[in-house]
């Protein structure tokens, strides 16, 4: 029995290893998915970014190659005419603006936006501050919202920026908020944490601009996004007189579609990882079947005696399947415990920017638990089934023969 015990523990370790593999693989996949999700949100939530483009089709007598650009009238029109849009803002860019605080001067980009920008482009303020609001817009206040890295470079990390005054091209602006730290993978014009934002109306008043650099709109019911896009082309096409099917007339960056594509890719990755993990577990289960066969062989007499005492074939079968299941469950619990320790440990390690940012946060979830437990159960049952059949077929006379 001593060697049998050793063999059983070897088999259990095989199952533990397989369980560990599948849980870790699936958890890293889940972590990747969650981190990517967070990173995508860094640019914005369900947004589509519109740029003016160039017409590529002749339309109503007008030639190709015409540049299209928007005004804030268009922002209002789109909002009115398309109810599925849950938020919209134009964005005005100013380049090479001088920002001064105390003795520090930086040359940076400043953009002018509307309040929906806050939740659309996830420019959430740190506690104690706020983003640009309706009153700022109405009164064309000279208020400014700073990206967190920009604030550090301009004013230093210890200063409480809220209420402080900085100058933009010599004009005083009051800081109303500093952006919360966020993970951002996609961007335009540099990362958001390096940007300064003022009310769109203030910027218009300063520069007398009519044309908006881009329009950003949000469609929270993401399945409606394609329809909204069509409407946008139709409405702007009617106004600027371009063919609504002329894709090049507008530049479109659809993060909604981008997220969907990435989502599908991720599901593919998760399935792939899951399969590898499952394969490892299945290979370990071959070890279980092997040891069960040996067990049947070594316990032929025991089986014969039990049959003589009135055990039915089913009893014998059940006993061996149960033993196989026990081995699988023990291995599963061991492997699972180690996996959880590793996952907890890694979750605790802070990850900065870099490759670990996406891959370094394995996340365990209920579906992962269910998948693993199910595979373990199936594997245990299958590994025990055939040896159990063999056991049930033992001829009691043969096994008791050599008295």
């Amino acid at each position, binding site marked *: *029995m001593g060697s049998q015990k050793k063999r059983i523990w070897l088999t259990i370790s095989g199952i533990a290893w397989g369980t560990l593999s599948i849980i870790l693989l699936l958890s890293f996949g889940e972590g990747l998915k969650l981190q990517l999700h967070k990173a995508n949100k860094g640019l914005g939530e369900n947004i589509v970014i519109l740029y003016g483009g160039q017409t590529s089709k002749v339309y109503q007598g007008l030639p190709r190659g015409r540049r299209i650009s928007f005004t804030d009238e268009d922002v209002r029109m789109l909002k009115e005419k398309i109810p599925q849009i849950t938020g919209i803002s134009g964005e005005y860019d100013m380049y090479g603006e001088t920002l001064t605080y105390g003795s520090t001067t930086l040359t940076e980009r400043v953009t002018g936006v509307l309040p929906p920008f806050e939740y659309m482009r996830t420019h959430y303020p740190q506690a104690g501050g706020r983003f640009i609001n309706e009153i700022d817009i109405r009164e064309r206040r000279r208020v400014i919202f700073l990206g967190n890295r920009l604030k550090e470079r301009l004013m230093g990390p210890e200063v409480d920026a809220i209420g402080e005054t900085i100058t933009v091209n010599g004009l005083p602006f009051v800081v109303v908020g500093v952006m919360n730290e966020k993970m951002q993978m996609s961007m335009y014009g540099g990362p958001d944490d390096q940007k300064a934002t003022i009310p769109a109306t203030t910027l218009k008043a300063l520069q007398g601009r009519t044309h908006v650099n881009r329009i950003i709109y949000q469609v929270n019911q993401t399945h409606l996004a394609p329809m909204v896009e069509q409407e946008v082309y139709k409405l702007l096409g009617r106004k600027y007189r371009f063919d609504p099917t002329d894709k090049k007339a507008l530049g479109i960056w659809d993060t909604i579609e981008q997220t969907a594509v990435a989502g599908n890719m991720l599901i593919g990755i998760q399935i792939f990882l899951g399969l590898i993990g499952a394969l490892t577990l299945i290979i370990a289960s071959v070890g279980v079947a092997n040891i069960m066969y040996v067990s049947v062989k070594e316990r032929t*007499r*025991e089986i014969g*005696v*039990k*049959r*003589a*005492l*009135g*055990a*039915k*074939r*089913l*009893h014998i079968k059940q006993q061996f399947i149960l033993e196989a299941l026990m081995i699988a469950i023990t291995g599963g619990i061991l492997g699972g415990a180690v996996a959880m320790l590793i996952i907890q440990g890694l979750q605790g390690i802070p990850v900065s920017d870099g490759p670990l940012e996406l891959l370094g946060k394995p996340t365990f979830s209920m579906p992962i638990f269910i998948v693993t437990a199910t595979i373990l159960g199936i594997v245990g049952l299958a590994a025990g089934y055939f040896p159990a059949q063999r056991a049930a077929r033992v001829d*009691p*006379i043969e096994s*008791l023969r050599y*008295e």
Partner: protein
Amino acid sequence: MISMEQITRIYDTGKIQVEALRGIDLEIGENEYVAIMGPSGSGKSTLMHIIGCLDTPTAGQYTLDGKSVQAFTDNQLADIRNQKVGFVFQSFNLMPYASAYENVELPLIFAGVSTKERKRRVTDMLDRVGLADRMDHKPNELSGGQQQRVAIARALSNNPRIILADEPTGNLDSESGAEILSLFSDLWKAGNTIVVITHDRNISDYCQRIVKLKDGMIANGALT
């Protein structure tokens, strides 16, 4: 109770055919104490296995308690072995890693008896064979005689009427053998039917009746 007519058992091992039993006619009634004796290879164990429904005859009629055993399914035969018959073996055949209690419990588990009821019966049986104080001992912690007594308690746990013992004292010293003998006498007096394969004159002297087997046939007729 046990009625055998022209029972034949042929083992087909591919190349050779072994005729273990050739046309046995045997009747055993209630509360009989029968010894089966004979040289090695005479078919004693085979006969015992067939009586106990552990094996089925190749030909002939076996009627047990008025029912023809041939008609029974595999599971029904298992039930007979569980409820009507109790086996006792020469080498005890206890489960080595289980306690005396767990060994005696086995037939009850197969019968689907509840845990509470099992406790009652196992304790009762071990008490009857004088081992109530050794319930948690494993076989390697018991003497030969004690192990055989556990085996007998196990055979009795479902209160079968027929006890079948194959050389029950074969691996025991004379003192332990005598204990087993006296146990069997008690069981006989309590109304059980006992069939023993034995070389031991002590046992055969105690039996009511001796059936002698030779070359797969009864050598001394079906009656004493």
